[in-house]
């Protein structure tokens, strides 16, 4: 739950791609008493306002309930490509006009795409909020792109793929592991797209996707900052509220069949310096599978991987001294099958096999002996105390609500998070561990450096 940034970055399955140079990791719904105000426009668009009057600024976000896992077969990357194309202008505002309006008030903007959602945002002085809403509402339905936009922007996403994946053996390997984790569910396809499919994405693909999914009833407006719902709602009605309602099709995703066989992937690269180990188990989350395990699994992740005193780091890194890093992650937010993962890498000159064996031993001990109520109480105290930090800031709370509402949670779910976490018992944690840590639903990945003699000289 409150994983360090480094570990969050490893929790890639549901991480998002952003238009600009900064990747945005979706943070778990770590919240306590944000006390948001909500409304729904006549056309079905949901509105959430989180007031924070420290500075006269707002974060204005629109989240769409559509992402990479909703792409048509053979069109991988189209959700993210469309996100880029939304910056190419509308019938009312040519390319650059919206961005210039943001720059004129000293604001910042970006967008990001995940498997389950796509979001666009601006951070601006509160006085510019109405203008932002006007432009954002305009591009929800009036996108104006043609063939001349496609070529250069497709090259941009291909360069993005090279930067994020192709130039990086660890990322290439994660892509292979991700594909092996799901037999059928669309999370198996890379969010940025397979290169050969990205190269063929065209104008029609983008417009079809846009026409299908971009409409008020599939969107959530989140405004956080120095405003109240009384300020925001009239503006929302004037802008987003003017867009006619249109039914949006249901998300039809392939159903993951029973997984019956353990999978193991190994890759060797001459551009990898240190071996690394990963293990992923298919896991339920807030919205998929046996959802009652979602809260206990967050506590389990804290017991196993809560900083330097979590079971894994303490045992493998501090006591046994066989690993340089070791930990676990869990991501409950997906619309589809989530994952519970382990990772580790050896000390200099150490053996990756010993790291794997030690992590296996920790999992075996956990399954045999369980966690204690004392461990659970300690983990609950840690994560609920830290939830107060989530209220410090403007964009963080906005993201928490956008993510929750776009993936099937409610405002009440977010607000109830501390209470639900506090009720978790050791019995529930142990039941969740037994349900999830099954080898036939697991993927093990080993990334190894090539022997020194094979290395290129530079």
């Amino acid at each position, binding site marked *: 739950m409150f994983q360090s940034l480094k570990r969050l970055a490893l929790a890639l399955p549901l991480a998002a791609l952003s238009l600009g140079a900064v990747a945005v990791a979706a943070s778990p719904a770590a919240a306590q008493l944000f006390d948001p105000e909500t409304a729904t426009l006549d056309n079905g668009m949901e509105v959430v306002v989180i007031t924070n009057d420290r500075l006269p600024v707002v974060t204005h976000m629109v989240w769409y309930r559509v992402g990479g896992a909703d792409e048509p077969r053979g069109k991988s990357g189209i959700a993210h490509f469309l996100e880029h194309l939304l910056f190419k202008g509308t019938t009312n505002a040519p390319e650059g006009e919206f961005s210039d309006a943001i720059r004129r*008030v000293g604001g910042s903007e970006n967008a990001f795409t995940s498997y389950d959602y796509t979001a666009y945002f601006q*951070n601006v002085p509160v006085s510019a909020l109405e203008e932002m809403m006007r432009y954002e509402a305009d591009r929800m339905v009036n996108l104006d792109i043609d063939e001349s936009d496609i070529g250069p922007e497709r090259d941009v996403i291909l360069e993005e793929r090279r930067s994020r994946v192709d130039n990086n053996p660890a990322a290439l390997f994660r892509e292979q592991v991700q594909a092996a984790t799901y037999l059928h569910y669309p999370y198996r396809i890379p969010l940025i797209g397979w290169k050969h499919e990205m190269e063929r994405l065209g104008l029609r693909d983008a417009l079809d996707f846009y026409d299908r999914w971009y409409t008020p009833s599939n969107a959530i407006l989140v405004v956080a900052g120095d405003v109240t719902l009384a300020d925001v709602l009239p503006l929302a009605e004037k802008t987003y509220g003017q867009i006619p309602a249109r039914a949006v099709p249901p998300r039809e995703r392939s159903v993951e069949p029973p997984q019956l066989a353990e999978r193991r992937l190994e890759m060797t690269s001459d551009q990898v310096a240190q071996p690394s180990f990963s293990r992923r188990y298919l896991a339920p989350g807030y919205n998929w599978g046996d959802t009652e395990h979602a809260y206990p699994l967050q506590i389990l992740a804290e017991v196993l991987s809560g900083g330097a005193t979590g079971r894994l780091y*303490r045992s493998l890194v501090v006591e046994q001294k066989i690993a340089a890093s070791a930990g676990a992650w869990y991501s409950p937010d997906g619309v589809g099958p989530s994952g519970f993962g382990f990772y580790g890498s050896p000390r200099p000159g150490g053996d990756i096999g010993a790291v794997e064996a030690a992590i296996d031993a920790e999992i075996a001990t956990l399954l045999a002996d369980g966690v204690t109520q004392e461990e659970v109480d300690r983990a609950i105290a840690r994560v609920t*105390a830290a939830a*107060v*930090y989530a209220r410090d800031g403007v964009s963080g709370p906005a993201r928490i609500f956008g993510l929750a509402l776009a993936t099937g949670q409610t405002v009440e779910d977010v607000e109830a998070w501390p209470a639900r976490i506090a009720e978790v018992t050791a019995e529930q944690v142990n039941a969740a561990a037994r349900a999830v840590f099954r080898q036939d639903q697991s993927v093990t990945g080993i990334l190894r450096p090539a022997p020194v003699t094979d290395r290129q000289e530079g």
Partner: protein
Amino acid sequence: MTRIIAFFALFLTALPAWAIEIQEVKSPGGITAWLVEDHSNPIVAVSFSFLGGSTSDPAGKEGRASLLAATMDEGAGDLDSQAFQGKLEDLAIRLSFSAGRDTFSGTMRTLTRNADDAFDLLRLALTEPRFDAEPVERIRDKMLIDASRALERPRSLLGGAFYKGLFPNDPYGNPADGTRASLAAITVDDLRAFMAERLAKDTLRIGVVGDITPKQLATRLDTVFGGLPETSAPLGLPEVLAEAPGGIFVIDRDIPQSNVFFGHRGIKRDDPDYFVAAVLSEIMGGGFGSRLNEEVREKRGLAYGVYTYLNPFDRSGLFLGGVATDNARVSESLAIIKSEWEKMAAEGPTQEELDLAKSQVKGGFWLRLENSGSIAGTLVAIQRLDLGKNYLENRDGLVEAVTLERAKAMAKTLFQPENLTIGVIGKPANVEATLPTPPIPGREEG
């Protein structure tokens, strides 16, 4: 304690638009901090810095300040590493130290209800770290692995070479996180020597934000920082100009996309024309709408990201940028960057570009102050850089004062096409190396 002698100077009235009210708090023991009181959330954020960072690492012991930063919170006083870390985690106290090139800094965040413990743990880490063998060797092993990885990752490898090229004879050219050989050479005595020489009251600057009153803070300041020595050792390093002769070096690497760093000398933060240069960099490579973003990314799809920025060290100024393009087309990106550099030097920006960039430079600063930690960090930076007690009030005006005339004059000196020095890693087509590749720190260690 029955008496608290402290005085508080309120030197900033609330800004008309930006209600950040800074109080100067002076402790009975003479330690000064800037405070922004905010009782809306039960959180206290503390940020502080000392002068002297990785450039104080002795030759052959590069990475000393970084190793220190990573081990100070691994046990202190009577608490060993697990006890110390466990207490931080149980109380949700976020404590971290970090080594920059010119500074050694720390941050601490705590819930108000745990403030007693939080400030005490901070005091212990700052004044009584244990440096037990287990955590020191564990952290060293982690850094050794990171040093190996840095030699495999294209961007970090290129960065190491690029900085060595800019500063062949100054510690600015050394890797802040050390090399395998230099990390292995650092002893606990070296760590303690850094603390004794650098972590002193004379260069300490403190910013605090959140749920704490000036009186409470005054007491805390003496508790936490009172035990530090009064004065630090002289830094003893002179100003240095980066060596950017113009030209290209290429590091051959079998990857599909070439990574590129480019740049030359820039200006320092204390230059009266700093904001003129900041606005010009924004126009050239500041993000959406900038010249390079338009020409390289939007029009031609040559890169996902292309950017420029000022990198003002204390003793040297740099003006740098980066791009990453498919090997086959990277020469196009380089040609565009060079031609934009020439064009800007010759003609300067337009009034329209200037106006937009000034808004960006103004607004970007305020938008970054969205949480307690970033405000506390800014309070430290203002003090450290001696930007003045009214900086928050004055900053917009300083940016506003960048006229087209000043910008055009500065463009002629800031953009130096003949000195544009470019480092490439990859298998770039049609790129001719004209410079030798600088030594790559740590590469020869095997």
